[in-house]
């Protein structure tokens, strides 16, 4: 009976955490598209919902694995204690994220959950924490925004050289953009296929996956080329770049979807990672090298995110959309594509990164390429501050709740 209660509490806490992820972070992918008028709020929500869910369910397991068993050694903890601990981590992280959101601190759910999982483990025994994994994760928090910045810089410079500088930039964009579509489609299908669809009984090797991915990339490129070809435009005096921006509005829909997909793939773990451990123990599956991630748990995470998007996310998107018009569609395209690529790659590596922070890095990358009129670099200080705060605070919350629950549940 007690076990059931823990599982139910964990499901609720996990749902709340996913709700929070959907409510706040989804604006990262959709804010710019709504702001630039590429998408209506309604369509943005639909795209976000679909791609977040797909990302979570189809690619979400890698990071989930890391949260569930990578940070602490689950084999060294009695399973009842582990269950209570993971429940405490979920509730602690959720509590901190709620407080931080209320205070408008730019904290990351990823960093909160990582801190929270470390928190209860630290109470049991410091040595249970896999410090080398924690070190990798911490490094990924530094590397991922920088990688986002570098990619965004490169993407924007390519666009500048091959599109902006031409006399008829839209004509060139119609040729160059299918190449970007190819890259995006290939990467997404690669993330799905390679070590991806075991759940569905498909297991492709590296080369096999690559082959299929490139093939689907080429098909996407062809479709993209034909669609873009139909775009009609005329320039008037001095509005070449403005017309180009208009053209990019449609392409931004693609990148926004990709970011939503990558976000779902990475961030679903923040809510379902601890739940997976709890459910596995409940089902009597020994927690060892491999955790079994039931599909329904990922779907629950996806569902929570969708719930967050549709109940609160739209307000955040709207608010951001109004203020974000500064990032025009071409700049948004470069920044979002860089974000999607970065987050997706880290997801496949099982590294829980913060999508919000990667997109900030990417926007700065475009800024370095002199693409944006004003970038407020003070955000970097705020983000670093939020890291410094989040880890110990989330640890403390989780540890406190763990002690309380241990007393209640385990006596």
């Amino acid at each position, binding site marked *: 009976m007690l076990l059931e209660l823990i599982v139910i509490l964990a499901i609720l806490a996990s749902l709340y955490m996913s709700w929070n992820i959907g409510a706040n972070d989804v*604006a990262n992918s959709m804010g710019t598209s709504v702001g630039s008028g590429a998408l209506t709020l309604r369509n943005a929500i639909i795209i976000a919902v679909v791609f977040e869910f797909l990302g979570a369910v189809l690619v979400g397991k890698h990071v989930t694995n890391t949260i569930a068993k990578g940070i602490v050694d689950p084999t060294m903890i009695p399973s009842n204690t582990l269950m209570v601990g993971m429940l405490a981590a979920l509730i602690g992280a959720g509590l901190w994220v709620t407080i931080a959101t209320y205070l408008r601190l730019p904290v990351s759910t990823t960093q909160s959950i990582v801190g929270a999982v470390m928190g209860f483990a630290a109470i049991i025994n410091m040595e249970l924490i896999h410090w080398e994994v924690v070190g990798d994760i911490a490094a990924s928090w530094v590397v991922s925004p920088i990688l986002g910045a570098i990619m965004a810089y490169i993407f924007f410079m390519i666009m500048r050289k091959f599109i902006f500088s031409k006399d008829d930039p839209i004509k060139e964009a119609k040729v160059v953009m299918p190449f970007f579509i190819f890259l995006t489609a290939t990467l997404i299908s690669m993330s799905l296929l390679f070590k991806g669809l075991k759940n569905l009984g498909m297991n492709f090797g590296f080369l096999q996956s690559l082959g299929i991915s490139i093939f689907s990339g080429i098909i996407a490129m062809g479709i993209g080329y034909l669609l873009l070809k139909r775009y009609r435009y005329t320039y008037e005096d001095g509005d070449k770049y403005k017309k180009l921006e208009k053209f990019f509005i449609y392409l931004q829909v693609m990148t926004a979807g990709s970011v939503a997909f990558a976000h779902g793939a990475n961030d679903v773990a923040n809510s379902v990672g601890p739940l997976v451990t709890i459910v596995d123990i409940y089902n009597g599956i020994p927690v060892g090298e491999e955790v079994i991630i039931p599909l329904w748990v990922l779907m629950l995470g996806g569902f929570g995110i969708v719930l967050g998007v549709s109940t609160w996310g739209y307000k955040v998107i709207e608010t951001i959309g109004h203020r974000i018009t500064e990032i025009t569609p071409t700049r948004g395209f470069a920044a979002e594509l860089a974000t999607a690529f970065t987050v997706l790659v880290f997801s496949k590596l099982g590294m829980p990164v913060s999508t919000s922070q990667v997109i900030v890095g990417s926007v700065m990358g475009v800024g370095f390429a002199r693409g944006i009129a004003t970038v407020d670099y003070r955000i970097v200080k705020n983000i670093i501050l939020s890291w410094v705060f989040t880890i110990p605070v989330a640890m403390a919350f989780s540890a406190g709740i763990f002690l309380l629950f241990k007393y209640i549940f385990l006596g």
Partner: protein
Amino acid sequence: MRFIRTPIIQTLRKSPFEALIDHAHYVRDSAELLRGAFDDYLEGRYDEFEKKRQKIEELELKADYIKSNIRNHLPKGVWMPVDRGVFLSLLSEMDKVEDIIQDVTEWLSLRKKPVPEELKKDFETLFEKSLESIKLCEDAIDALNIVIESSFLEKEREKTKEIVHRLHVVEHESDLIERRLTREIFSIEDRLSAAALFHLSKLVFLLGELANHAENAGDRVRALIAR
């Protein structure tokens, strides 16, 4: 709004370039009004003149508001693809142009008397040149914005430099007319009252200043797009 913690919102700010363009539009509109106001003044339609002066005053207030807004929203730590200091001094030059337009109408309204027939034509040309330099200023700022939109493409920078160059030419022409007109005024000093002499010669001086500050603004634009 509470319950938002998305860092991207703190990263981006409204472009000060858009606001700069709005400011330049107000300056241009004021300059056009000034041109019309002077015609009214010459023809002795002082009521019409006063109406235009009123409008210029309103425009000046609006431009001033934009200026303060830009200044307040560019704290240190905000990165721009151009030099922040030069950007602010461009804004301040444009604001001086607007101030001087207002000064000219103010100065005209102090003394509503006919202008000697033989000076009318040169005065009209001088007003025309001032207006032209201000229009070029606006063009230069529009071009600057295109440089930003294009993320500093060489050819867009060239176009901007071209406009600034024309601005220099116009300022020089304005200078020549200014000198000639001052001489003409003093050549008929016997026929003019001391008040008229002072009024007309300072008017010429103010118009010269208009073109000077327009030229300064152009130089700032050029400095902004320099690598």
